[in-house]
């Protein structure tokens, strides 16, 4: 019906119709999928959630005499240096060696994006061509060569909600879970979430231009643990974790409003990452898919203590109502993912497209739509 090229022409002419995924729900309700597909060109999505599998490659530049860094610390947080001389990868969840859980890789990334100076200490065994054995200096956004965020797994398509069956409070990456099914936490932006609006990956693929942390970034590949074979509803949305994205983007251009370090009590450090993905409404099917609402998206509530195999199907509409009923008891629910910032992202992306600053890209390759389910790690030895 419409091609991406045609949509981009409209964007350049300033005639494209762009709406957010939440606005699309009402539009399709009102005029049906057929007319909505004719009217709307692009639907924007957004999410702002803790995404542990995030990090950044940084190239520090060469000193004189040069060093082939073998071990690197940024503000006392170890970065992986087993690559070329002055390249390193700082992972979001790595903890500070001096401050423990109070500071980590995610904080280094946020500080870097905020333009702060970061202390670099590196060691080496010294070689004929790289004689220096250690270096202490400061780096920042302006004095490093490249700094690109490369997140192996972002934008989980859907995620199980968490609860706790035991009689003790547990501290998890799903937040603080109170005893005896005392609360339920959940962590997606539901009807606004990127991969829930393109559940069968018809338009989002390798090379798709995205909003990443306030800058323009790209889908680099399917994310780790991409699991398209997950159980699905008739509308195509998966029930629980399924598709994931590996994202890449220039960290020098990002904004700390959309990249925030976080600490989960007794669990550790992670990074809130803001992502927005535009979805071209190519045809009636995409109009239907992008009009998905929280009433039609489901997940399981699972016992994060691991003590029971408790699992209960719920819709995001129920989760968002503030309460769900578990074993006949009303249990309060709480989000962990910021709907407020997710909406802000979807809206910024919409404005950027309307102004012609952000074009839609044709993926170089689509994401796998089928595949083996995930492997388990065997334990062999102690």
């Amino acid at each position, binding site marked *: 019906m419409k091609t991406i090229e045609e949509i981009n022409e409209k964007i350049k002419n300033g005639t494209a119709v762009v709406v957010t995924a939440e606005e699309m729900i009402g539009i399709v309700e009102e005029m049906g999928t057929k007319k909505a597909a004719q009217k709307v060109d692009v639907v924007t999505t957004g999410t*702002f959630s*803790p995404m542990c599998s995030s990090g950044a490659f940084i190239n520090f530049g060469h000193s004189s005499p040069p060093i082939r860094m073998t071990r690197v610390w940024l503000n006392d947080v170890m970065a992986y240096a087993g690559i070329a001389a002055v390249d390193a990868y700082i992972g979001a969840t790595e903890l500070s060696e001096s401050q423990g859980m109070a500071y980590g890789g995610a904080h280094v990334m946020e500080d870097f994006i905020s333009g702060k100076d970061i202390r670099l200490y590196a060691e080496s065994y010294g070689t004929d061509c790289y004689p220096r054995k250690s270096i202490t200096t400061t780096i920042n956004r302006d004095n490093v060569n490249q700094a690109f965020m490369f997140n192996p797994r972002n934008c989980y398509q859907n995620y199980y909600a968490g609860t706790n069956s035991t009689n003790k409070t547990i501290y998890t990456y799903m*937040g*603080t*879970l*109170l005893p005896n099914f005392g*609360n*339920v*936490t959940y962590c997606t932006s539901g009807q606004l979430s990127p991969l829930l609006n393109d559940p069968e990956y018809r338009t989002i693929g390798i090379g798709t231009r995205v909003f990443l942390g306030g800058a323009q970034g790209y889908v680099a590949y399917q994310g780790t643990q991409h699991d398209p074979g997950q159980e699905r509803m008739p509308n195509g949305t998966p029930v629980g974790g399924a598709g994931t994205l590996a994202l890449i983007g220039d960290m020098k251009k990002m904004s700390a409003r959309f990249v*925030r370090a*976080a*600490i*989960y*009590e007794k669990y550790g450090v*992670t990074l*809130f990452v803001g992502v927005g993905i535009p979805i071209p409404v190519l045809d009636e099917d995409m109009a239907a898919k992008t009009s998905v609402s929280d009433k039609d998206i489901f997940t399981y509530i699972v016992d994060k203590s691991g003590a029971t195999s408790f699992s209960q199907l719920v819709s995001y509409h129920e989760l*968002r109502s*503030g309460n769900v009923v578990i074993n006949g008891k009303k249990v*309060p*629910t*709480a*989000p*962990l*993912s*910021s*709907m*407020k*910032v997710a*909406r802000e992202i979807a809206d910024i992306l919409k404005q950027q497209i309307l102004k012609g600053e952000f074009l839609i890209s044709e993926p170089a390759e689509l994401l796998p739509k089928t595949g083996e389910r995930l492997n388990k790690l065997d334990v062999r030895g102690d």
Partner: protein
Amino acid sequence: MIDINTIKVSLTFPPSKVTFPLMTKLVRVFELEVNILHADVRLNKTGKLIVELTGETHNIDDALKYIEEMGITCHIFNGTLTWDEEKCVHCGACTSVCPSRALTIGEPDYTLSFDKEKCLVCGLCVKACPLNVMCLAQRE
């Protein structure tokens, strides 16, 4: 001059005292205004009440003595919770632990709302907030 004061207290009742009509006494005998903020009371179990008491200072002092004499443990909250709204990302994680619903989030705009009146100053949200934007300060 009448000296009116308001305090927030947590009362822990031993199982044998759970049915004791303390609130009525506080109102009738000590002429206090009682506002129950949180209640967790079950028959034959240790009970917990969090209440706000308003009244003349000498009446409040007498009431606190009376409560102790009745074998009910009383703890006065004298801290205050501060929320650094600028740094808050409105994720909602703190709302999952707040026992009094002082913290809530939802439609229309998913902005965290903090109702100071309902806050028990329990500090649970301080640790549950991943952004570290809640802080408990002791009142002088």
